[in-house]
């Protein structure tokens, strides 16, 4: 299956991915309307260390620890995609405690959220928003 991969060699640390992610998952049409004056809770995060920057998002592990650990049975993997059922999640954050990549974080309402490849997002354009918006192809969506 296609996954998101990042190559820090080409990451510029511009953080467009974070904003594109937040917008894609906002459900609002118009980025300014969606994000202006708001704190964003992106599902992809850029890390910086000196000149090294790279983005981290869910790896959609073959054997996802988060899903096995979820006390609410809210995290499932289907067709290769690990998703959080926002209705079931109670915000205990056990998934945050077990994710080796630090790719899960609570959203605005306290429930766990993570990259779900923008599937089903009304304002996404078929590929994950972070990938489409990356100006340097540091984030790609492909089979490996």
């Amino acid at each position, binding site marked *: 299956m296609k996954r998101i991969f990042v190559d820090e060699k080409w990451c*510029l*640390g511009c953080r467009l991915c974070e904003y594109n992610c937040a917008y894609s998952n906002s459900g609002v049409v118009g*980025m300014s309307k969606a*994000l202006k004056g708001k704190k964003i809770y992106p599902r992809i995060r850029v890390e910086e260390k000196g000149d090294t920057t790279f983005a981290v998002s869910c790896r959609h592990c073959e054997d996802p620890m988060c899903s096995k650990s979820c006390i609410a049975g809210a995290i499932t993997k289907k067709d290769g995609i690990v998703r959080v059922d926002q209705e079931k999640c109670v915000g205990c954050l056990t998934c945050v405690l077990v994710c080796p990549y630090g790719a899960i974080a609570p959203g605005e309402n306290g429930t766990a959220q993570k990259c779900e490849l923008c599937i089903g997002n009304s304002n996404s354009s078929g590929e994950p928003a972070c990938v489409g918006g990356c100006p*340097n*192809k540091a984030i790609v969506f492909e089979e490996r």
Partner: protein
Amino acid sequence: MSLNYITPEFEIKRNYDRCISCRVCERQCANEAHIYDEDSKIMLADESKCVDCQRCVSLCPTHALKIVKNECAFRENANWQSDTIKEIYKQASSGGVLLSSMGNPKPLPVYWDKMLVNASQVTNPPIDPLREPMETKVFLGKKPSRPERNADGSLKTDLPPQLELSMPVMFSAMSYGSISYNAHESLARAAAELGIYYNTGEGGLHEDFYAYGPNTIVQVASGRFGVHEGYLSAGAAIEIKMGQGAKPGIGGHLPGTKIVGDVSRTRMIPEGSDAISPAPHHDIYSIEDLRQLVYSLKEATQYKKPVIVKVAAVHNIAAIASGIARSGADIIAIDGFRGGTGAAPTRIRDNVGIPIELALAAVDQRLRDEGIRNDVSLVVGGSIRCASDVVKAIALGADACYVATAALLALGCHLCRTCQTGKCNWGIATQRPELVKRLNPNIGRERLVNLMTAWKHEIKELMGGMGINSIETLRGNRLMLRGINMTEKELEILGISHAGE
């Protein structure tokens, strides 16, 4: 001192209804023109630092940015225009020579735009490139004046060394140092994929790029930076650079700040030292000296590599080219006065040299008049902007074109013309690692290949319209061109008729 204050050239217009303070502009501006104000949580700008490279405009996710010409104006004066006035202020405060980059931006005539291309109607058919073969392959190099035969009567098929091009366009010289590693990698990989050539410029050849040698032209310039036997043998051809269209008559100067790491090693000069190429080659003060260098290089490479001599288009170009053609060179490259540069004195860039169109027409005709046109191939550069420029150049008599500015544009250059600062926000004309990485060669290669592929399609369309299905029969086919808005003299030099004739 207020006398030193020069109004910023540009104004950064931020639409605050759109701006989400994501700070992408701030992170992306190496000139630090954008500032985030923590207290008010809004983006501010320092316009004096803006060079209008459009990086922020391109990356702003909400399209909140616009860079516009500063409206603050001197009183209008057709003679003393605002650029002239500002230059005087700059010189009055610094006492220095003004520097600038890329090609001559002055409103001097562009002859490409005054020439129109023919098409077939009724008396012979246009050819559809989608249905019929359409050939753009070109061989550059000396052609023998008479065939020789073997004892059995068959032709001897050995030829002097030739460069085979899938289309009549090559990437012209840009040195590693003046442009980045990633820019070079993009050019090298694209050239290899396209079946054309790129040119090292005078900065030597990085060891990583020897692999692309079969598609590389290695340059020998007056500074001889990075020149050694391995380098000469690595390329497919050797180019002796006598001059450059953007700055005929002067040498080059790459500041020590760009001579870092691999650049210094590749050039074979110490880190941090300025790389100064002298105005002349100090072993070439005349045409016979050139002949010696041509043959020295041929000796060094066992006569396996064609030798190109590159000159700037200057007044006496036809005679100069004739001399070069008789010097043993296989290819003459002529660079017109609009050619780009990483840095040149403004006065030189804007006032020295002649248009490539006229130089090309004069040289091609002169070499034909002397019957030596087939002894050399002609490559022209200096602002070839599009496929129709290529077609017109070939029809005037060129074998191939050199492009550089167009290639840089494909790589992301926005022609802000401040290469000399080394702070290229697009990762091209810089050696700062955090900026260099902004040009991902995977993208760069793809965009160059796309550009050239698009041009190739357009060249074929134009050829097909003329009923020509091989680029060879376009070369020097001036009947396919007509002039518009030109004087008799201009038409005479170009060797074409006026439209309607």
